[in-house]
């Protein structure tokens, strides 16, 4: 016999539940012996695997061989010890072969960290995608901005503009707190037709986000109001995103006045 909540408990253990669902399962576990036991068992199995499993890194010989192969693959005649050369010598010192192998290695490094430029954008996209998972979208569900806005006061480090733009086609669904850029960001969730639009807001960093970006088919549109950075993320079209951004910018301007 297994408690009907066991899969949800597992999801809780794996950090897959949002704050509300997590709180609910914690309440459940208080009264369910079976779930409390399961939680202990999950923890034991994890600890054992992480501590005891034979899990060695790639052997250096394999690393060297693949580096050489990829260098050859990229059309560069790889000098021997290419891997050693680019690791120990700054590329501008390495004349000839050293320079070439440094470039080749750069290509290799680049292709695996292709997402490196704009880690903030990646975080935003990841948060958006996570929000689309069942029960991840909103912490507070309300189409009333008088409910959503005060909710952020206790749950996020910023207080963004919030309004229901249903007449204009952007229905306010609710709000959510998200953690990134070392702060509790506020996320306001809108629905436009079949599209979910997450509007992230957080204290602007020193780096400017690019105004437009597209990642994995999602559009990211960023703008700044005062010291707040806003970024709308959605699979909706650019026009739709800009429509919402315009409404929010106007609203922010009114609030300042």
């Amino acid at each position: 016999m297994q408690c009907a909540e066991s899969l949800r408990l597992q999801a809780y253990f794996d950090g897959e539940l949002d704050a509300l669902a997590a709180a609910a399962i914690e309440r459940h576990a208080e009264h369910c012996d079976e779930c409390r036991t399961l939680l202990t068992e999950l923890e034991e199995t994890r600890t054992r695997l992480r501590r005891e499993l034979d899990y060695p890194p790639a052997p250096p010989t394999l690393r060297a061989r693949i580096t050489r192969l990829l260098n050859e693959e990229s059309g560069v005649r790889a000098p021997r010890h290419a891997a050693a050369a680019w690791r120990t010598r700054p590329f501008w010192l390495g004349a000839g072969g050293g320079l070439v192998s440094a470039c080749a290695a750069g290509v290799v490094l680049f292709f695996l960290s292709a997402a490196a430029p704009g880690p903030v954008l990646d975080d935003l996209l990841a948060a958006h995608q996570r929000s689309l998972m069942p029960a991840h979208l909103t912490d507070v569900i309300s189409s009333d901005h008088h409910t959503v806005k005060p909710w952020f006061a206790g749950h996020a480090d910023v207080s963004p503009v919030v309004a229901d733009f249903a007449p204009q086609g952007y229905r306010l669904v609710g709000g959510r707190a998200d953690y990134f850029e070392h702060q509790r960001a506020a996320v306001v969730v809108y629905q436009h037709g079949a599209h979910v639009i997450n509007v992230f807001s957080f204290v602007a960093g020193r780096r400017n986000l690019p105004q437009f970006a597209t990642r994995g088919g999602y559009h990211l549109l960023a703008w700044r109001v005062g010291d707040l950075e806003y970024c709308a993320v959605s699979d909706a079209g650019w026009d739709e995103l800009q429509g919402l951004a315009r409404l929010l910018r106007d609203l922010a301007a009114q609030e300042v006045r």
Partner: protein
Amino acid sequence: MPHLDAAYRFARWLTRSSADAEDIVQEAMLRAFRGFEGLRGTDAKGWLLAIVRNCHATALKQRLRSAAAPLPPETQFDPPSSAPDPQAASIDQDERRRLDRLLAALPQEHREVLLLRELEDMSYREIAAVTQVPIGTVMSRLARARAALRGKYLEEEAGAPRAVR
């Protein structure tokens, strides 16, 4: 080369052989490199592990087709890294070997979700992308895998003579 270690570890536990793992990873890195355009999302690690998994599946199929090379028995796995770790006590070594053996004996669909979740710390969504099954399937497989590993572990512990300390 970021993620090479993850690729190798994953391949090693898919194939249960260090030598096969090296071949698989090499093949996967080449495929990844050639298919550079194929990476559209942001999860380079998951992308690479998915390629590793495909390479493993292809290699398995080829081996099944050629009658000349019989499949290795299910539990074949090289002994854990032969260089003795001076810090690890012999009891630790026994524990390690037992866990290795039990994990190696699990079916692949259980082994892989356990590794990706517990050792690579990947989310359900990421695991679903690597193993190409829906998230719900990831969840149920993970639950079964954890229960199976734990069950076998307890079974052995009950049957095994008490460790001499």
